């Protein structure tokens, strides 16, 4: 069996001197090219887990290896360089509202260009061509110079995807990418992510709210409850009992068609 691409070992995140435990001893592995879905109730630690992987949040304890490199040991500068290969998309899109779509997408190349160039907004021609290509790929080429906050939710998330694509990432972290969208748009956005996973070979870690979406798009599922890992396996393996374990006794499944 090949070396796993992402290894998380005993990841723990505590706040307030131990009173608040966000993640408790989480360990799992991800192979290259997998589409891993993280499910769980709100507040179970999904967002914290994703942010620990690219060290936007510092883990209190534990180790994370990406492609053989122990990133928990990297200095801030080295980590910044490493982040270029990790793309991230967010629940609330996190775009620069007043800037154009083009500028937003170009910010994906911030890590690849020297500071003086980016401060003046002088991205090289190759970056701009790549931006147009990625915009065409997500179907937003005509909106290239429209202000980002004039787009709909689904379109904004596609801009986020284009931004992540600009990084030419090996790993994509998606923090509840479709929670703020209606069901039809959710599928459309998830399909773009799936396309990234299948055609570009990007390893995807996505946290999702709806189990049906997780079953449909994920190749593997892990579940968090109160910061602990309670399930790690294939989507088919989640039966009613396991479902109630993850979500609690009163939960019922909702279909997102």
């Amino acid at each position, binding site marked *: 069996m090949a070396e796993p691409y992402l290894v998380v070992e005993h990841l723990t995140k505590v706040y307030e001197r131990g009173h608040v435990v966000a993640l408790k001893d989480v360990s799992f592995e991800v192979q290259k090219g997998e589409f891993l879905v993280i499910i769980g109730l709100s507040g179970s630690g999904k967002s914290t887990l994703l942010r620990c992987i690219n060290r936007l949040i510092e883990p209190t304890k534990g180790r994370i290896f990406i492609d053989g490199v122990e990133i928990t040991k990297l200095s801030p500068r080295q980590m910044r360089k490493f982040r270029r290969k990790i793309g991230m998309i967010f629940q609330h899109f996190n775009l620069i509202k007043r800037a*154009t779509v*083009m500028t937003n997408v170009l910010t994906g190349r911030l890590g690849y260009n020297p500071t003086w160039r980016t401060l003046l907004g002088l991205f090289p*021609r190759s970056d*701009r*061509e790549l931006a*147009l290509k990625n915009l065409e790929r997500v179907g937003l080429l005509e909106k*290239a110079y429209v202000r980002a906050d004039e787009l709909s939710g689904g379109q904004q998330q596609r801009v986020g995807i284009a931004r992540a694509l600009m990084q030419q990432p090996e790993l994509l972290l998606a923090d509840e990418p479709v929670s703020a969208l209606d069901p039809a748009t959710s599928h459309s956005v998830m399909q773009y992510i799936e396309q990234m996973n299948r055609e570009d070979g990007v390893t995807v870690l996505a946290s999702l709210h709806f189990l049906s979406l997780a079953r449909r798009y994920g190749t593997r599922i892990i579940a968090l409850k109160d910061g602990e890992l309670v399930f790690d396996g294939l989507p088919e393996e989640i039966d009613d009992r396991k479902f109630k374990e993850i979500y609690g006794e009163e939960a019922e499944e909702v279909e997102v068609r």
Partner: protein
Amino acid sequence: MARMLPAKVERGRFRRRLIALFLDWMSWGYVAYGVMYFLNDYWWRIPLERFYSTLTLPPWGWPAAVLGTLAMAVVCELTGYSLGERALKLERKRERPLTKEELLRGRAAGKPFWRTQWGIMAVLLLALTVALGWHIVKIDPEALIHPSPRAREMLSEIFPPDFRHFRVPDPAFELRGLPYSILDLMVLTIFMALLATVLGAAVALPLSFLGARNIMGFSPAGWLVYGVVRGFFNIFRSIETMLWAVVFAIWIRWGSPLAGIMALTVHTIAALGKLYSEQVEGIDPGPVEAVVAAGGSRAEVIRYAVLPQVIPSFWAFTLYRWDINVRMSTVIALVGGGGIGDMLFYYKNEGKWALLGAVVITIVAVVWAMDYLSGRLRERIT
């Protein structure tokens, strides 16, 4: 072929072009003023009436200036993308599709702004403003770096500050026959602000309902009252507290705390009235609808639908005003309003800098404390 736009849009566009022309005309008028000012100052120097130096012109001057600037404005409008048009964003239409090059660059094959007409005009106006400002206001870095001898004396004596008369009155300083220490006068000053704020808020609150469009706008008489009240608010707000203080000081007596209180109150009523009435106008009409539908009278609508929505911001504005009033009351004595400013002025005139320092530090401490408190309270309310 140009598309036919509906008549209303055409009229709107014409009006906007007129406004753009007006703006260009004003910009050229400003340039003309600048030219006249510098000419007057450096060349024509009319000796007696330096006061009028900017606006004295030969008899043919005024019409020439007006027509000349208008002509320049028209020339600008016709020959390029003038400043007025840019300000109103009157776009030039483009019909052909974007080329790949333009798509890459992100600019519709335009010139950089410093080569367009509006860009040059904007830079010119900016430079003129800087030059004019520097000159009119008589900026002199020399004077800043080399203070006057009196200032030097002040700086050397102001540290350490002398708190001798903080609780014990200074026998040399007496207001209306009564000795005051710094503490006493400061307490008096705070009381001035307190009275002004309480009185001002109490009067402004009912008045604000009379100045709110959604309460008054149901009959011609209502509109009249609204207009009068709003006009009153605006006029009385435009005159700063200090100016009111001078008026009241001459009215009552120079140095009377009542003059200060009246000045603060008048300005508070106007300022709070405006803030309150804007709040009342900005409420959610839903609850109002609900109360009216349930059969409530006008007073009941106010009591159950309007008041609950505006009370938190009423408190916030009143606290904000209290903070401002405390600051104002510390200095209002300088124009005859009574309060701790009297002590400030007295020590400054006597040249007793150490005692002055003590007064200033007390004022700073009190104002800072009030500012902090009012800020924290306002955080809690909103």
